[in-house]
């Protein structure tokens, strides 16, 4: 009990400290003595898988961005379970029309190599990320910026986006193609981190030892498949880290890492754990296992361009026939949150009860199916997912539910490897409901709506197109305030809840487990663990 109280206090305190530092002196009420029970110093050994890249502009996936977030500080941060936006390097981000944004930086920040972090550092970074021949994973984040198209293709017309303009050393202007109220929310993503000149000169070399501006800096090079060693950046302008060293230990198999955590050879698993081990870890780690809501979202998307799925009652019936809770209990040890909406609760703009057809109600499901004229006799529902990634288990459970509750026999189509599965989905050639997963890049409900369901949306593979939905999104884009935008986007989500182009299943949970002497662990689904706040107990 005592430990729990202490931990809570530590988390609350460090959050408050960060906001204090970040917001430039906004008064915050905080409790507890200065520094709490966190000791300065120590080497925290952290589990990760081998990242693909760790230079910020290319650190698109979870492992790479975990490292990048320790090495870089961006314009803003997302803090706490409600993803509150706080300024880090930004002094202000303003627009009058949601189209032209003026970003003012705090002065005096420097990269780990001493270079100043100024407007040029940001403009340089964003252009390098967007420039197609660099093949950076962060490229698509700049699609909304004016002139992005000129940097695309095999031999692009330009190397710089016309929408980026330097005003002075600490001010620059971003012009978007269309107004977008959510633009400032995007800026905390790793793709928007600044880039040093030395790094832009040789992106590949920089990927081996990124030059960041964050609370930690590289100690030597990335030792592939073994470790990435970081040390505290003592010249950091923000709140300095407690730890002397931060070592990312790279594991091939998460089971091995878990065993090493048990044996005390690593200190923290910051995001995932082997699913089967969670029940035993609950017992072994107690309060040192945080089960945090994660915005990663799993759904069964429906090819709405195909019979019999064109009829929305069929889609509604299928959704009501699936007992999400039972599947989550059986397959995910009850950890995941059965979804009742299309964007995660707790997310800016997100609600937890938009989807009335997500209720498990076999009677109503049968009725809806009958109203739609029943399921075509003899036809099997083909359920698609990519091979070799363990999706067969839950997909089979979904199929079993359809069979039991609606009498729809199913066939699992899980033989496509991921590249072909994705390409087939892109080409709209899947012949039945398919696995759809989504992890957000920035905390705004819009990120779950426009790309997936907007007409011509970048990842819209269901063929869903509803002019009213598109109109409501545009209304949100033009909102004056972010809260208001979230509400307006939510009105677009209401249409999905009726049309059901996709069947929401569940939201993921992240499991953060750490050793007895570790403290100050705070996690949210976009930012991950903030290592600058973690330390060892005194």
């Amino acid at each position, binding site marked *: 009990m005592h430990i729990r109280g202490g931990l809570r206090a530590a988390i609350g305190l460090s959050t408050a400290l960060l906001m204090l530092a970040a917001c430039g002196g906004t008064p915050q009420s905080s409790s507890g003595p200065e520094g709490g029970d966190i000791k300065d110093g120590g080497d925290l050994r952290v589990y990760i898988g081998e990242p693909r890249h760790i230079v910020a502009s290319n650190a698109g996936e979870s492992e790479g961005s975990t490292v990048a977030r320790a090495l870089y500080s961006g314009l803003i941060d997302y803090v706490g379970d409600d993803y509150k936006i706080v300024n880090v390097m930004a002094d202000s981000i303003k627009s009058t029309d949601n189209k032209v944004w003026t970003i003012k930086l705090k002065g005096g920040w420097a990269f780990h190599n001493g270079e100043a972090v100024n407007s040029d550092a940001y403009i340089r970074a964003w252009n390098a990320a967007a420039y197609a021949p660099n093949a950076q994973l962060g490229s698509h984040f700049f699609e909304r910026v004016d002139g992005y198209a000129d940097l695309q293709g095999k031999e692009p017309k330009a190397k710089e986006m016309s929408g980026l303009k330097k005003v002075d050393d600490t001010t620059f202007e971003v012009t978007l193609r269309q107004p977008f109220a959510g633009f400032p929310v995007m800026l905390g993503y790793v793709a928007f981190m600044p880039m040093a000149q030395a790094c832009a000169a040789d992106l590949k070399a920089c990927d081996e030892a990124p030059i960041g501006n964050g609370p930690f800096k590289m100690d030597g090079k990335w030792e592939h498949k073994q470790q990435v060693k970081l040390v505290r950046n003592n010249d950091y302008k923000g709140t300095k880290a407690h730890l002397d060293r931060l070592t990312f230990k790279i594991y091939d198999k998460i*089971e091995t890492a878990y065993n090493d955590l048990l044996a005390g050879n690593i200190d923290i698993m910051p995001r995932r754990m*082997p*699913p*089967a*081990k969670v*029940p*035993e870890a609950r017992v072994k780690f107690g309060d040192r296992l945080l089960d945090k809501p994660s915005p990663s979202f799993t759904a069964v998307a429906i090819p709405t361009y195909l019979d019999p799925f064109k009829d929305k009652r069929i889609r509604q019936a299928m959704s009501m026939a699936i*007992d999400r809770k*039972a*599947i989550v*209990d*059986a*397959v995910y040890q009850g950890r995941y949150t059965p979804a009742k909406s299309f964007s995660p609760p707790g997310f800016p703009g997100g609600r937890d009860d938009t989807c009335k057809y997500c209720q498990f109600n076999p009677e109503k499901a049968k009725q809806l199916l009958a109203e739609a004229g029943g399921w075509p006799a003899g036809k099997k529902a083909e359920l698609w997912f990519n*091979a*070799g990634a363990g999706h*067969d*288990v839950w997909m*089979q*459970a979904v199929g*079993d*539910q359809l069979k039991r509750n609606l009498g729809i026999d199913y066939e*699992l189509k*899980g*033989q*496509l*490897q991921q590249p*072909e599965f994705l390409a087939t989905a892109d080409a709209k050639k899947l012949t039945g409901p398919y696995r759809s997963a989504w992890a957000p890049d920035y905390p705004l409900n819009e990120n779950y709506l426009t790309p997936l369901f907007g007409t011509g949306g970048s990842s819209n593979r269901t063929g869903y197109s509803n002019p009213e939905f598109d109109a409501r999104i545009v209304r949100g884009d033009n909102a004056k305030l972010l809260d208001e935008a979230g509400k307006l986007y939510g009105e677009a989500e209401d249409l999905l809840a009726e049309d059901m182009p996709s069947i929401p299943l569940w939201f993921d949970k992240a499991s953060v487990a750490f050793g007895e002497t570790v403290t100050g662990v705070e996690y949210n689904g976009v930012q991950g663990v903030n290592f600058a706040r973690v330390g060892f107990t005194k």
Partner: protein
Amino acid sequence: MTEQVESVISADRSAQAGIERSASLWADAWRDLRRRPVAIASAVVIVLVSSMAAFPWLWTRTDPRDCPIQLSKATPSAAHIFGTNELGCDYYAMTIYGARASIIVALVSTSLVLLVGALVGMAAGFYGGWVDSVLSRLADIFFALPFLLGALVFLSMLRSHSVWTIVLAFAVLGWPPLARIVRASVLATKNMDYVQAARSLGASDRRLLFRHILPNAAAPAIVVATILLGTYVASEATLSYLGIGLQPPEISWGIMIAQGQSYVTSGYPHLLLFPAAFLSATVLAFILLGDALRDALDPKLR
């Protein structure tokens, strides 16, 4: 004319003698095997497992794909003597139905390996020259390809992974050892007097190969093949563990072991133990039978 006919008869007689010799070798071996308890026990296990593979309904009337999800991960009880898996499928029924994949993979792969190995080995050994060179280099390639990595590359090429694609992978990678055995045996016998005699009497190549030369290679080839049977059962499981073997909803011991092993320390050891026990017993049976066969067929070790 008469002379020639007589010679043919005598050649045939000598061939017959060869067969009788090998027949008595097999008869001796059979007598020897019957006296070995390990061999008998192995044979019994193989027969039982084969019956599961061929007629699973003799063993269970439960459908392994009828899975009430509320019964997820039940521990063994009277209703489900092996418990249930995470989806609530009866684990005993799954274990019985899982035998089929393992047995098909083992039997068909081994047969193909024997067939290809024998043909290539005979061609290389009998014709020699450039045929031998080409076939030997080809065998070198597949011999030198590490088995597991080779299977990995091969299977990753294919679009879907069924029992048959795994069979194909094992056959493509498995034939060189057999080919070498047969080739060596052909080289050793082709210059023996009785073969030369048959040849000089105008026996066709095919007749020479199949009646006079091949029977001598049979004993070592069959010993190796029996051991291969066991190896293939185990390899199928390893491929499933690596995620490139059979894919669920296909039922196989390999998949069950691979999925069940993560639950061992979580209070559901039955998910690993039952399929692993069945698989290990089967592999053990094949290998020990192969061993016994080797001892029985090798008179030097009697």
